[in-house]
């Protein structure tokens, strides 16, 4: 069993799994390993949106609920397996708006039960949310309704990082939303592009981009582990692959063929020869 396969063994069926968007270091190797493990009934939390990782998990039958501000493949278009499953009612979708996800996780980071957020009042999004309430701002002289967003505690956060080190820290650079997820989740599992010896926290230049081992439950090495998404300065997003996926996954049959080739098989078409 590979390190990545062993890492995802920690994820239980039915878990609330927080995932980053396609542009923010998704752990695609781990997502493929989860599909091979036939994990079931996951509740996905998009921080704040989801893309290919969610579409693969949904199409492969691993997902019961999607909590997200959006699911899309960006320029490659709609996420076909998500759209199909939502239209057929095969998954429950709870719609968010991006800052409400961030706010709910920041409340957990701070150990408070809720946090206020401007906007949103009058949106139909509020109808699906027993975990949101509109309250009067207690400090205002006049009427001032404001949205209160309950804290969210993900069971697991899963993402990729450029580096892990001997001390159990990971370096995500500017992708600080990953720090917010890690701070809020009960357990955080990370795949890393490279492992470095020593302790990165001793390096003043690296320190601001680190999530310390305090928050990390497990690390596994996964070279090109974000493919077909990218890691800044290491490899770019494989736009051609995403476009090919978007076309193939329009049908269940095409999606199954994609799984056979790229998930059950080990093909990574953009690997350098």
């Amino acid at each position, binding site marked *: 069993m590979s390190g990545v396969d062993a890492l995802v063994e920690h994820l239980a069926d039915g878990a609330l799994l927080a995932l980053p968007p396609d542009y923010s270091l998704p752990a695609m190797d781990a997502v493929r390993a989860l599909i091979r493990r036939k994990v079931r009934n996951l509740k996905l939390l998009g921080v704040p949106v989801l893309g290919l990782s969610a579409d693969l998990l949904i199409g492969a039958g691993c997902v019961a609920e999607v909590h997200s501000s959006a699911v899309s493949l960006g320029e490659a278009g709609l996420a076909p397996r998500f759209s199909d499953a939502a239209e057929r009612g095969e998954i429950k979708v709870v*719609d968010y708006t991006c800052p409400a996800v961030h706010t709910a996780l920041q409340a957990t980071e701070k150990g408070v039960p809720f946090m206020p957020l401007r906007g*949103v009042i009058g949106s139909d999004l509020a109808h699906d949310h027993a975990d949101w309430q509109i309250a009067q701002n207690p400090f205002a002289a006049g009427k001032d309704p404001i949205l209160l967003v309950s804290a969210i505690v993900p069971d697991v956060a899963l993402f990729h990082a450029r580096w892990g080190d001997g001390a159990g820290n990971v370096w995500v650079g500017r992708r600080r939303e990953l720090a*917010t997820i890690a701070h809020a989740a009960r357990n955080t599992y990370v795949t890393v592009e490279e492992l470095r010896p020593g302790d990165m926290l001793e390096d003043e230049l690296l320190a601001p981009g680190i999530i310390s081992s305090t928050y990390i439950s497990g690390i596994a090495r996964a070279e090109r582990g974000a493919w077909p998404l990218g890691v800044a300065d290491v490899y770019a997003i494989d736009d051609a692959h995403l476009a090919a996926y978007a076309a193939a996954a329009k049908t269940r049959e095409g999606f199954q063929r994609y799984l056979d080739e790229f998930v059950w098989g080990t093909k990574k078409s953009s690997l350098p020869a």
Partner: protein
Amino acid sequence: MIARLIGDANHVAVGAASPIPAAACELLRAKGLPIRVTRLHKRKGNPFTEGSRELFDLAGQGRIDYFFLGGAQLDGEANINLVHAEGRRFPGSFGSAFMYFTCRTILFREEHSRRVLVPKVEFISAPGWSPPEVERRGGPVALVTGKALFAWQKEQRRFRLESVHPRHSVEEVRDSTGFDFDAERVGETPPPTAEELALLRSTVARQLADDYPEFARRVWGMESGTKLMP
């Protein structure tokens, strides 16, 4: 035309699905205006160091003047729907339910049809207006489509047809719009000048190719210049 609408801006933010508004912003910069353009999904040199929530923190404080929103459906009260319509599921509301409250917003949708511009949206991702007790700095300014430009009249809560683009008519716009709107002294949208067109096809095209590769390929026939591997 979008560039003309936002010419007074200091700071404009542009999302991943907005290559045409992004082109308008880059056009203003190419013409020498000192405008800060934050492209949310810039693949290299993204301005945020606190993660994607920093955009919303900036907007919440009022540090972003203009934003762009579209929708699967838009209605005559400027409500937008990014969630579901006619049995079809769309990606979702993204940050709209917050950004629409915090930024002056240009509504932009290329398709101008009764399918898109409806009497009432099926789902309100973000409302076009709010009661006076709800704090709201931002909201709709204009609606731009492939056929016309509408101005938003905040007091009347109604759109007013400002101009139709060359080769389109007021009757055609009326026929292809599902909601009622005001229309008096409707002009023709002035086309871009020769200088603007030249900039769009050179400087602006180069600026956009890395972050909107599919758009750049379609419009300008360019291949992406994104090569991060040394």
